[in-house]
């Protein structure tokens, strides 16, 4: 039978300060660790929710993003008559031919930042039903009017209804504010595709074509046309959701790697803290260890007791760190998305994987920090331990 756990717990109480400081150290590291993962996951979640499962995006092959992609007017015409595209009640294909550009706007917090301006076609509401006006009205096709995403409205100057936004030499009037279910579109401004093309002198060449399939199961058939039709062979077809998922990958991976690198350095500090605490605990209780061993408790019992104390400290730290980190979910922040070179607003998002990783991370710190002191405790010779009084 083992040394009772209350023995460990009461020793915590007795050494509140050192135990507490160690717990706080581990909690802070777990907080940073979880926050970074939540940031990466938040970006992914935002971008993934931007795309729809039954939408298809057509881009130029090897284009890293919409900005660097071109789809010519001829190609748009061919695509518009392809089979398997969903149609409106009056028979029009649900397609949006979209020029996407990056423009520069002043931030409310000072300085300038890039944002994505997207030209859309008149079927866009059917294509992206999660986009909803929360104030003002939809822009009129044929005029230089804009609707702005909620995040842009909140963070940028001149993005209020009735105000003018100036880019490429033209004045555009903001007429509405929209939400898009927390997706990346909320960090964009939208106007009439044709107006945007003429402002930027792009003729009829757009960045991407997004369309709705009549049935998501027809994706492979739809895609095969692009392999066979010579005029479309320079283009690439993807499920929209997948496209945005890929867009999030680079940014999320970058944040993860940087964050994990930083937290591993922090964790060395916390691990050494735990080790010092546990060495002190062993030194303080050497006579107790000798006594327990004399009474017949085994070396392994002693080892397990001290290792569990270290583990317990790290697990309590993990719980506190995660509680702190989970409160970040109520905050949204905005950052430059490397994939699109423009601002993206997102929320920190917690996932079961992040919770599990945080606990594993804390457990590793606890085990590493507790290992050597516990081994020392277990290896003490009974007579030496008893003589140390």
């Amino acid at each position, binding site marked *: 039978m083992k040394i009772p756990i209350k023995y460990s717990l009461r020793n915590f109480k007795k050494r509140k300060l050192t135990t507490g400081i160690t717990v706080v150290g581990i909690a802070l590291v777990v907080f940073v660790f979880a926050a970074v993962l939540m940031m990466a996951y938040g970006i992914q979640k935002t971008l993934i929710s931007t795309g729809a499962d039954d939408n298809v995006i057509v881009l130029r092959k090897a284009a890293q993003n919409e900005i660097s992609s071109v789809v010519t007017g001829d190609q748009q015409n061919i695509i518009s008559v392809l089979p398997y595209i969903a149609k409106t009640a009056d028979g029009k294909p649900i397609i949006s031919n979209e020029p996407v550009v990056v423009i520069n706007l002043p931030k409310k917090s000072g300085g300038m930042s890039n944002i994505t301006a997207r030209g859309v076609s008149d079927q866009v509401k059917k294509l992206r039903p999660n986009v909803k006006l929360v104030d003002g009205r939809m822009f009129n096709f044929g005029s230089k009017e804009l609707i702005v995403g909620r995040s842009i409205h909140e963070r940028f100057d001149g993005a209020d209804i009735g105000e003018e936004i100036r880019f490429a030499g033209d004045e555009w009037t903001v007429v509405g504010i929209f939400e898009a279910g927390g997706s990346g579109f909320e960090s964009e401004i939208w106007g009439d595709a044709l107006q945007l093309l003429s402002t930027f002198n792009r003729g009829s060449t757009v960045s991407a074509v997004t369309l709705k399939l009549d049935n998501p199961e027809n994706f492979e058939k739809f895609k095969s046309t692009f392999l066979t039709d010579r005029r479309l062979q320079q283009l690439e077809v993807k499920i929209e959701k997948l496209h945005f998922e890929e867009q999030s990958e680079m940014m999320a991976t970058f944040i993860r790697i940087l964050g994990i690198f930083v937290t591993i350095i922090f964790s060395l500090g916390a691990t050494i803290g735990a080790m010092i605490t546990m060495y002190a605990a062993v030194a303080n209780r050497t006579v107790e260890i000798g006594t327990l061993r004399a*009474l*017949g408790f085994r070396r392994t019992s002693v080892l397990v007791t001290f290792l569990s104390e270290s583990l317990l400290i790290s697990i309590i730290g993990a719980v506190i760190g995660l509680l702190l980190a989970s409160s970040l979910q109520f905050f949204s922040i905005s950052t430059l998305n490397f994939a699109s070179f423009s601002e993206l607003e997102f929320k920190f998002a917690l996932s079961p994987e992040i919770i599990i990783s945080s606990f594993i991370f804390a457990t590793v710190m606890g085990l590493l920090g507790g290992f050597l002191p516990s081994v020392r405790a277990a290896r003490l010779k*009974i007579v030496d331990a008893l003589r140390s009084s």
Partner: protein
Amino acid sequence: MASIISIQNLSKSYQRDSFEIPVLNNLSLEIEEGEFLALMGPSGSGKTTLLNLIAGIDKPSSGKLTVAGTDIAKLNESALAKWRSNNVGFIFQFYNLIPVLTAFENVELPLLLTNLSKAERKKRVELVLSVVGLTDRMYHYPKQLSGGQEQRVAIARAIVTDPTILVADEPTGDLDKNSANEVLTLLDRLNKEFKKTIVMVTHDPASAAKASVKRHLDKGDLV
């Protein structure tokens, strides 16, 4: 009466750096069942070392050491741990109670190594605490007790498993006269009433007077 502890040609030396420090030299001693032995001798003569060997928390360098029929020098570490928990009750000079455990929990500790149920453990602990006269202090922590009371809790812990032998290393060394007398009276009662074999190390002739047999150790030899 039969010997319960039989020591033949026992030697013990400690290794310090490259030096070999002899502590006990070829020592032989028979202790009979029910004996109350007082081991006396000057500081550094090897009393604690001998007691530790008898109690099975240290290993002899050579010689034979049999306790209640078991050649304990031959037991491996985990067998020895089990043997101790069944056969030896420890009483230390500084009581060595676990500070974060109550009197009850301290006394219960050795029983956690047995198969006794919680209810049986409770019965035993209450019984031995009543033997040492501390029923009313059951839920006190060591620091809430006087030295004499702490030592009586320690004695309760030593007898709760009903061990074959009790070993006590200067059990009154840290106590005032009255408390020391209480503890000695208790040991005497355990010896006479409960027929416990006791090996006690002491400096104090008054303490030794309670014992049935006195032996003197000097520089590792029995004299």
